[in-house]
C-alpha cells in the first residue's frame, strides 16, 4: 500500500474553516490550552473541505469525554451520544441512510474501553463509518485516570504507582478486528494526518484513524512530559512516517510511533451488500409472482 501522507494538498486558512464548518456561536471550545483535540477537529474539517463533502449529507457522531465536544462545534448534523456507544448509534444512522457520510469522533477510553466491543464489531462488519480517535492516553474529562492507551508504567490519578496494564494500539486493534482501513496520525504532522483522515473518509468500508492527541493538563503533568510545546516536540521527533519507520532497525524503533497508513484493503461495504440483498429479494419475488 502506498502511504498517503501527501503534504502538497492545498489547505484553507483556519479562520475560513471555522466559518465554513464550525458553529462560531459555540466557540471558543472548552478544551484546555495546549490540548491536541482542537488540532484534530481542524484536521477533520480540512479533510472534509478537501473532499468537498456536503455539510448537509455529513453526520458527526460522538460519545462522551473531551473528544465528544467536537460534535457540538462542527456544523453538520451532529449527535452527542452515550459513553462508548457512538459507533453503535452511527451504525443505525448508516443503515437507515447509507447515502450519508457518517464520521465518528471518539476518545481513547470511549472507543477502546467502554466502547471496545462496538469498535471491533463495526470493523468486522466493514460498515462504512470513519472513526477519528482523539487519543490523549488518559481520561481527561474526569481528571486524569489511566486509560487503555496509557503506556505501561505511566501514571494517572488512578495509577499513582504506575500503570500495570499494557496499552492498546488502537489502529492495530481495529486492523486485527478486520477494519479495511487503519491509520495512525498525530498532532505535529498535521498535513499527513489530514491526508489520512481524507483517505479514510473516501475509503468505502470501515476506516479508523487513530490520532495521537496531547493532554498537557493531565497526562503530561502526571508523567512529567513538560508543557504542550514539549509534548508537541516529542511528537515531532518520535512520530515517524511509516516508510522511514519500516527502514529502521528494530533497536531504533524502540520508543518511536509509526504514523501513516497501517492497512488498507478494498472489501464490500456492509450497507452496500445489504441494499444488494434487498434488491435481489425484490427481484426474486417479482419472478415468483
Amino acid at each position, binding site marked *: 500500500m502506498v502511504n498517503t501522507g501527501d503534504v502538497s494538498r492545498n489547505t484553507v486558512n483556519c479562520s475560513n474553516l471555522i466559518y465554513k464548518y464550525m458553529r462560531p456561536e459555540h466557540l471558543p471550545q472548552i478544551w484546555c490550552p495546549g490540548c491536541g483535540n482542537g488540532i484534530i477537529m481542524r484536521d477533520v474539517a480540512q479533510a472534509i473541505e478537501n473532499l468537498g463533502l456536503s455539510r448537509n449529507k455529513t453526520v458527526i457522531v460522538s460519545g462522551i469525554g473531551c473528544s465528544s465536544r467536537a460534535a457540538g462545534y462542527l456544523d453538520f448534523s451532529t449527535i452527542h451520544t452515550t459513553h462508548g456507544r457512538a459507533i453503535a448509534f452511527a451504525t*443505525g444512522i448508516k443503515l437507515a*441512510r447509507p447515502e450519508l457520510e457518517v464520521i465518528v469522533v471518539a476518545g481513547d477510553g470511549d472507543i477502546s474501553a467502554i466502547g471496545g466491543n462496538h469498535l471491533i464489531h463495526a470493523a468486522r462488519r466493514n460498515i462504512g463509518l470513519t472513526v477519528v480517535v482523539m487519543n490523549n492516553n488518559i481520561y481527561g474529562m474526569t481528571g486524569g485516570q489511566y486509560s487503555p492507551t496509557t503506556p505501561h508504567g505511566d501514571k494517572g490519578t488512578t495509577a499513582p504507582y504506575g500503570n500495570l496494564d499494557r496499552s492498546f494500539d488502537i489502529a492495530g486493534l481495529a486492523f486485527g478486528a478486520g477494519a479495511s482501513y487503519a491509520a495512525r496520525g498525530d498532532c505535529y504532522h498535521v498535513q499527513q494526518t489530514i491526508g489520512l483522515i481524507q483517505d479514510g473518509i473516501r475509503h468505502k468500508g470501515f476506516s479508523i484513524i487513530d490520532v495521537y492527541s496531547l493532554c498537557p493538563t493531565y497526562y503530561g503533568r502526571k508523567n512529567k512530559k513538560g508543557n504542550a510545546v514539549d509534548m508537541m516536540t516529542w511528537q515531532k521527533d518520535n512520530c515517524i512516517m511509516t516508510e522511514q519507520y519500516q527502514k529502521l532497525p528494530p533497536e531504533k524503533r524502540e520508543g518511536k510511533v509509526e504514523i501513516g497508513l497501517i492497512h488498507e484493503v478494498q472489501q464490500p461495504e456492509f450497507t452496500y451488500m445489504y441494499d444488494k440483498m434487498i434488491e435481489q429479494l425484490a427481484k426474486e419475488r417479482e419472478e415468483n409472482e
Partner: protein
Amino acid sequence: MGKIVLMQGNEACVEGALAAGMRLFAGYPITPSTEIAEVSSVRLPSLGGKFIQMEDEIASIACAIGASVAGVKAMTATSGPGFSLKQENLGYACLAEIPLVLVDVQRSGPSTGMPTSPSQGDVMMARWGTHGDHPIIAISPSTVTECYGLAIRCFNLSEKYRTPVIFLMDEIVGHLREGMELPDPEDIKIVNRPTVQYPDAKRLPYHMKKNQLVPEMAPMGCGQRYNITGLIHDETGFPTNSNEEADRLMHRLMHKISDNYDDIVQVQQINMEDADTAIFCYGGTLRPAISAMEEARAKGIKCGIFRPITIWPFPERELAEAAKKLKKIVVAEHNYGQLVLEVERVTKGCCELDFIGKVNGTVLTPGEILSKIEEVKK
C-alpha cells in the same frame, strides 16, 4: 373479515410492528424474545427494511436510536438480562425524545434466573430502570391478537409523543400460539412523528410551536444541521447549565405524558358492573384470572377483572373509580409484589387488598387465584 391465522405472540408482535411501519430492527439473541429477531430477519429485507444482529444488547438499542434519528421507525427486543443492559440508552431516548419501541419479553429473574420461565418481574424496572426522572409509556398484551394490535399502538404512541415505548410482554404471551384475525391494512391507523416542513429553516430542533405536543423532528441528514445530546439542552439542542432551562425541559418531558393520560391509558374491565370483588391482573395472568372469575361467579361471588393494558402511566383514575364499589381486590402477578404497590397507593385502603404472586418458574393457576378470592381475612 380479515384472514384468520395461527400465530405466536412474538411473531404477532413483529407483524404488528411491520404494519405500523417498522423498517429497522436491531437485536441480540435472548430467549424468550428470540423469535422477534428471527421473524424480523426474515420479513424486513423483503419489505426493503433492515434487520441487524448487533454485538450486544447495548449496541442494539443504540442502533435503533440511530436509525430512528435518521427517520426510520425502529424496534429492539430483549428479555430480562438484556432489558437491564438497555436501560442507559433508554434514558437517552427519553431525554433526546427519540421515538423507539423496546420490547421486553419478561422472563424469570433476577440475574440469569430461570430461563425461560414466565415472570412479570420487570414491571418496576420498566418504570424506573434508567437513572434519573423520566417519563415512560409501557404497554402489556394478554393475547396474540393484542401482541399485533398493541405493537402498532406502541409505535403510534412513540411517534406521537416522541418517546420510547416499552412493549412489556411476558413469556406466557410471547410463546403463546393461537388463532387471530389479521386486520385489513386499510383499517390500521398509523401515526407518524411530526416532521419539519422547511428543513432549511432556523435550526431549533426542540422548539415547541403553539398547540403542538412535541417538537417537530427532522430526519438526520435532511439538510437541517441540528445537534442532539443526552445532556440537558434548550430548544437549540445544545447543552445548557441554566436551571431555568433544565426546569422547563424536565417539566415539558414529564407533562407531555402525564397531560395526555386519557389518550395513553387503556384498561380492560370484565364483569365489573356489579362486582364487589376484583382480580387485578395483566399480561399472561389474564387467562387464569378469567377462569378464576368464572368459577367465583359460579359460586355466587360477584367477581370481576380489572386489567391495565397501559401499565405506565399507571391507570390510577380508572382504578380509583372502580375501587369505590369494591370490597376486595386480589392482585395476581408473576412477581413478589410490584404493581400491587401502585394498587395500594391508589386505593388508599378503601377496600381489602390481597396479593398472590408466583416466582417459582410456573404459572399461576385459576385455583390459586380463586382461593385468594375466597380467603376470609381474620
